[in-house]
């Protein structure tokens, strides 16, 4: 087993690294520019989610508290189930 020393021997490692790293690095495609900064809309991390009182598909009223499990909840906003 070849043991490469730290520090001064590092140049050797770097050369080997370059040689094996022939794999194409993928471009990190940025998100398309939006007119609205989506990071700034709605409640932010660390802030309380506003409570709500809404009917579900069976007509039962639901609040945030009624949705929360012992570890919390996932609340999804979607556009529409109608179009």
């Amino acid at each position, binding site marked *: *087993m070849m*043991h*490469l*020393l*730290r*520090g001064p*021997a*590092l140049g050797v*490692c*770097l050369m080997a*690294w370059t040689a*094996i*790293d022939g*794999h*194409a*690095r*993928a*471009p*990190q*495609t940025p*998100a398309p520019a*939006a007119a*609205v900064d*989506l*990071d700034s*809309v*709605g*409640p*932010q*991390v660390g*802030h*309380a*989610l*506003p*409570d*709500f009182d*809404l*009917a*579900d*598909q069976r007509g*039962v009223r*639901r609040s*945030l*508290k009624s*949705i*929360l*499990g*012992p*570890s*919390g*909840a*996932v*609340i*999804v*906003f*979607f*556009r*529409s*189930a*109608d179009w």
Partner: protein
Amino acid sequence: MELQGRFEELRNSGLGLAAISYDSPEVLADFSARRGITFPLLSDPGSATIKRFGILNTTADPASDRYGYPFPGTFVVDRQGVVTSRVFEPTYQERRTMSSILVTLGHRIPAPATKIRGAHLTLTSYATDQMAAPGTHFSLVLDVAPAPHVHVYAPNTSGYIPVAMSIAAQPGVVLRSAAFPTPEDYFFKPLAEHVPVYSHPFRIVQDVMLDPSSASSALLKAAKTMTITGVFNYQACDDAVCFPPASIPLSWTIGVRPLDTDRPKR
């Protein structure tokens, strides 16, 4: 809806689930019946809650009869209702999967994984989702377990070769950022230096998306599966020596399905 498939998992993780839209309870009841949805779909007619949350889609035309819908997004809250994570997608076709959100939060999800034994470490590699449509935003996950007494170097380490996961660019796939955990501080006595390393199991999450743009639609329409390849590069060291840099090829294959356009018949 992908969410229904994750409802049980979320519940096992102690997380409640609800999805809110401005549809009437009747539309939601019809949608639930057709899709077998058992978690709460909440009706916000008039968009009062959407507006109170500050997520009304302001780019929509107020004169349109569709006006009032939100920017689609997901909040994860703790049991006090405080936001711990949030995702808003730039275009409506884009949707991050629940599995991807759960993995990023550190949860385990059931997924077929590949175990690879490398020199001085073990990799467990999987995709958060087995099926994706154009716009599906999911994650490629690499759980890395260094062998006992071995460490690898965190990204942006200078003077050492850091761990890196490089994914091959290919048409139809948009690569987002890869997330690495906060490293440990390692003190290397002989050189009296502090270096950021990983010596315990850690997770790399690479976010990817099937390209929803028209440029990729023909390609994705014809594809039954997509194979994404990459390579994991690292150098392992123990307290005395560094081993030669190593490279492990990676591959994930997922099924491709068309965009979900199922809606009530008029």
